[in-house]
Each structure stands twice: as C-alpha cells, then as structure tokens.
C-alpha cells in the first residue's frame, strides 16, 4: 500500500495534515452527514432522481445536468480566486488555467444541454480563494469530488456521451494530480479511482460549506 503523503518534500505542517483529508475521507464525512441534510439548497433541490438503468438520451440529459452542477462549483471557485488576486506564483497560474478549463466545461455542458439549464447556485468560498494553503487544499477536494462524480456516471451514458464526459474527467484528473503535487500529497494514491454515487457527491459538495 502506497503511503498517502509523498515523502520527498519533507514534513507537512500541522495545517497540511489537518486539511489533508483524502477524497475517501471527504466523501465518508459527506456520507455521514447526508442523512441530516435538508433539501433546501438549490443543488439538493434540483437533483434528478433516477435509478441506474440502461443508457438513453433522456438519462444522458439528467446525468449531464447533474454533472454541470459539479462544474458550476469549480468554475465559481477558481473564478473568484482570480478576481480576488491574492494568490501568487504557481497557485495563481493554477487558478487561471484550471479556471479557464472549468468555464469551458460549463460552456460545453450547457451547449450540449441546449441551454435547457437552470441558474447556477450561489457560493460563499470565504477565505478559501485567498489563503494559499486553504486554496490548494480546497482545489484538491473539489477536483477529487469531480473525478469521482464523473467516473460514477460515465457507465450510465450512451456511447456518444461516454466520450464527452471522459474528455472532461481526464482533465479533472490532471487537475487533481497537479493540485496534490502542489499540496505535497501523493497525486495518485490508488491504482484505481473510486467512483461516487450522486448522493455521495451531493453530500461531499454540501460538506464543503460553500453552497449558499
């Protein structure tokens, strides 16, 4: 078993360790609190409800609409980081480049859905878009959430949309690899990436505390 922390950069600070939850832990925490959530938030209220069934164009639409919610969260996070201009060096570059990607993902999914989309929800990122340590730790969390969410849905889609989503999740996985290296955490701690269900992703997103 590969250790979670990459050792070559020396010791991580106590803050690093505190924020260094793995995706699994993040999701587990989300799952633990999922039962207590109300359906008041826009993300929760707007969720599609369906059983995993054979791929169909109708199911594609529901799944893509749901994955768009994940992209909204990411695009808003990096967009705010850029606007507030507090980050320096490679973190600044990361926010700019990754933000551009997430906006492109939002545009692409909205276009695929034919403009048949709701309003993006509101977010409050607090100091996570200005504090370097918080920023990178949050980036890891949000990118892990996205990878797991997409991976969980790809097999539910028709062939055409399998490709659409894999072209995106591949880039999300690159983002998480990059972010984890910046955070001095093992970029690829497991041989296989575990998919998340819609409920796990919803809980993990709620758990960030960023949804208004």
């Amino acid at each position, binding site marked *: 078993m590969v250790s979670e922390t990459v050792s*070559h950069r020396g010791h991580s600070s106590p803050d690093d360790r505190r924020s260094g939850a793995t995706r699994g832990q993040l999701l587990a925490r989300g799952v633990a609190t999922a039962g207590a959530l109300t359906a008041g938030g826009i993300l929760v209220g707007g969720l599609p409800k*369906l059983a995993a069934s054979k791929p169909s164009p109708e199911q594609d639409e529901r799944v893509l609409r749901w994955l768009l919610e994940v992209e909204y969260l990411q695009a808003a996070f990096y967009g705010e980081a850029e606007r507030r201009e507090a980050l320096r060096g490679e973190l600044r570059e990361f926010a700019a480049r990754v933000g551009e990607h997430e906006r492109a993902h939002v545009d692409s999914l909205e276009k695929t859905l034919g403009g048949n989309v709701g309003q993006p929800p509101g977010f409050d990122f607090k100091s996570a878009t200005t504090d370097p340590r918080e920023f990178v730790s949050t980036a890891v969390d949000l990118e892990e959430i996205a*990878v797991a969410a997409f*991976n969980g849905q790809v097999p539910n889609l028709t062939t055409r949309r399998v490709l659409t989503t894999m072209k995106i999740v591949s880039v999300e*996985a690159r983002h998480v690899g990059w972010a984890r290296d910046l955070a001095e955490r093992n*970029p690829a701690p*497991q041989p296989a990436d575990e998919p998340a*269900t819609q409920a796990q992703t919803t809980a993990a997103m709620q758990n960030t505390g960023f949804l208004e």
Partner: protein
Amino acid sequence: MSDLTLEAVDRDGVIAETFDRLTGGTRADFFGKAVVGGAALAAALETTATAQDRHTANDIAILQFDLGLEYLQAAMYSEAERLRELSPRTLEWSRVVGANERGHVKAIRGLLGRDAVKSASFNFRGVTEDDRAFTETAVAFEDLTAALLKTQATQVDSRRVLAALVSLHSVEARHAAWIRHIAGVVPASDAFDEPTSKAKVVRLVDSTNFVTSTPRTKGRRKPRFTG
C-alpha cells in the same frame, strides 16, 4: 434506490471486493460498511474463474491490448525504482506509479481470466537510468494511455468493462499530470483531453524499441508490440 449508482453493473459486489484486496481494504475505511454496497464500483478487478465467460471477443481484444501496455509501463517504472538512478522526485514517481501499474496488470489479468496474455520481454536501453529520457518517455506513455482508454471506452460492449476502464483512466491522467509537473511541463494544457487510436500507441511503443520479444513471436528482431 433513486440515486444514480452503478449497482446494476456490480450487482454481486465482486468488483468492490476485489478492489478491497488490491488496496488493502481501504475502501471500507473510506466509505464505511453501510455504503459499500451502494458505492459499488471500483477497479473492476474481478478474479472469478467465470469472469471471462461474460466478455465478448471485442472486449477481450481490448483488454489484452491494455494488459500489454500495462506490462510495459509496470516493467519500466519498476526497473527505475530498482536501479535508483533517477532524481528524487522522478524516483518517487516511479515508485508510486510503478505500484499503480502493477495493480492495473493484476486487475486486467483478473478481468481476462484464462484469456490473459503473458508479458513480452523488455530492454529499456538506459532510459530507466536517465532522468530526462525517463520523464519524456513516461509523459508520452501516460498521455497516450489516457487518450487510448477514451477511444476504448466508446468501443467496449460491456458496461462492467467500461466501468473498469474508467476507473483506470483517471489514474493514468493523474500520472500524466504528475510526471509533467516534475518535467516542468504544464500538467493540464487543454480544457478537453482528446482520444487517440490504438495504431498511434502501437507506433509509439514500436519507436521505443523496448519490446525485445513477445511470447508468441520469439526471435523477431523488431517485433511489433501487440500485447
């Protein structure tokens, strides 16, 4: 269950169980017992003897090709780890990624069952001792493997096999970003990663001359790498 899940793909939980074996049971720690059944899908690492009975000839061919590619990567990174000639960051990459690729070999062999092919023999021609050559080769392998898996994901017949390829695919993309970061190349250069063809991957592997003999074509001077 009104949730979007993959339970239909992993009804018997075999995939989840095998993932546990591979990762030392961390999966249960991650999700807790209550949700293991619902989360369901992981590395798709089934090892049951009847596994291959469910695969179509098309899926078997795809998995066999991937197995060949994983053997190559696992061998190269494992050799680098043994020789310890690379810089500390690259060596750390080869240690972690080598373990992942060995995990992929095990996973795909498990999926293929009796249809699993043997590994070719390799000669890495000094690349595993040269930091620059190693990182450049690794970037090419990881980028192209992730790209190939996208093409294959649209070609497989079974959703089980698709789910397996998906769970490996994002790990290859992580590897690609990480080695690019080490090499000083932008880890994620575009908003969308495009697919690539098997032919292009075959050309890359051929160009390295790493494959010295395949189990079925011993003695050919420059055997074509087919997995």
